[in-house]
């Protein structure tokens, strides 16, 4: 059965703040409803905590770290799920119930099975 990474792009918020408790509750409800297909997932701290790492000059070169996310966009990666679904149609159906889908967008990416 194919596995999908559901990347949640939404407002760059701090889930630990009490003002987001309501949305967190929605996520919990989603997690319970879709428990059968969720194989993993995490919420992320906001992009202010992100560090981007690059190695310059090829392997073994200088490690360059920059403050912030890889790409500065209006909507940020705020969490993800690993979904195991029968096919893309089922994955789309599940993704459309992730709260981030109406507060941003969900990117579904099939996972390579080696």
């Amino acid at each position: 059965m194919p596995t999908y990474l559901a990347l949640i792009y939404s407002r760059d918020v701090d889930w630990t703040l009490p003002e987001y408790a309501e949305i967190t509750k929605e996520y919990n409800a989603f997690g319970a409803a879709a428990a059968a297909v969720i194989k993993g997932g995490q919420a992320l701290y906001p992009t202010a905590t992100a560090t981007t790492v690059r190695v310059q000059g090829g392997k073994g070169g200088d490690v360059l770290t920059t403050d912030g996310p890889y790409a500065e966009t209006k909507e940020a990666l705020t969490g993800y799920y690993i979904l195991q679904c029968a096919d893309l149609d089922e994955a789309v159906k599940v993704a459309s119930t992730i709260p981030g889908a109406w507060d941003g967008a969900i990117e579904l990416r099939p996972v390579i099975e080696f």
Partner: protein
Amino acid sequence: MHAGDAVARLVREERSRVLATLIRVTGSVDLAEDAAQDAVVRALETWPRDGVPDNPRAWLTVAAKRRAIDLIRRENKRAGKEAEAVSMFEPTPDPPEVVRDDLLRLVFTCCHPALAVDAQVALALRTLAGLSTAEVARGLLVPEATMAKRLTRAKQKIARAAIPYRVPAVEELPGRLDGVAATVYLIFNEGYAAGAGADLMRVALTAEAIRLGRLLAELMPDEPTVLGLLALVLLQDARRAARTDSDGRPVLLADQDRTRWDLTAIEEGVELVGVALRRTPDKPDPYVVQAAIAACHALAPSYPETNWDAVVSWYDVLLTIRDGPVVRLNRAAAVSERDGAEAGLALVDAIDTLDGYPYWHATRAELLHRLGRTAAARDAYERALALGMSEPQLDHLRRRLAALPD
């Protein structure tokens, strides 16, 4: 007709069905395409010489399945795997219902909303209509290498993202059918807009779209969307011979020689509109309504004798399901025929979002022209010309502009 041509046509007709069955059996579009292609090549080699077999589809399917088994064995050997049991490749002919369902699944896979629209169009032409990659590329004005890449990417997405090979559930069907119809209609318009003098392959897209429309109507004879789509493309294509003059310049609907319209296509289209209207459920279908408008024009003995009341009413219905500035513009043009240029112009001017649309300016220009407002008409013609259209359309506008009194 040459015997080889008849065989080629028969093989092409069957190719999409054989391909669809092979996709179900092998679970891979790529493998199925290789196998179907091999069977087609064999048929084209042997049939003209030995005669067409009694059941061409069964012959092709068996040949394709054998080829698929060979390809899988070769792949397994290379991967060091034991040859798997291939009992699913039972070389008995599949019953027609099964083949029909295979093809239906392929239709919905090719037109899946997770694929980009240009990929859907390319896949539909390649797999459902059975055109070669080179033909698809020429028809869509894309370099062949680009088209090959686009098709590969689309097939890869189907495989990797696991786009299902399945007919959608009843509750999803209306939305998904809209997508299928939109893809076929887009193909039709690519060919229709190309016009006379353009590459023949491009013009042939209208015929491919009609073929696809027929295929859909055969697969889903109870779906109004499908019947409406087929009716719409038939009725529009019926006017083809009269749409351009001997120099390839466009002839407006009002000036077309109606004796050159294709009566057989009109009859078929009008009848389909009738069937579709009787089957339209609680909500009118946009394709059926557009086909009804086309039928009003097709049935009018002359332009002034068009039933403009009916045309305007159908546009009113269309606005309830697909409101948009272009539909409003077309409705305004019909109103100007029914109630006069003044009434039409008021409606055209009420649409304030089409300033960048040349046909809005061209319609305004024409109505101003009729009302004798020469200076304003000249401005509007010039605006339309500046925005650009196809060369024959521009030519028409230039002639209208030149016809204005000083």
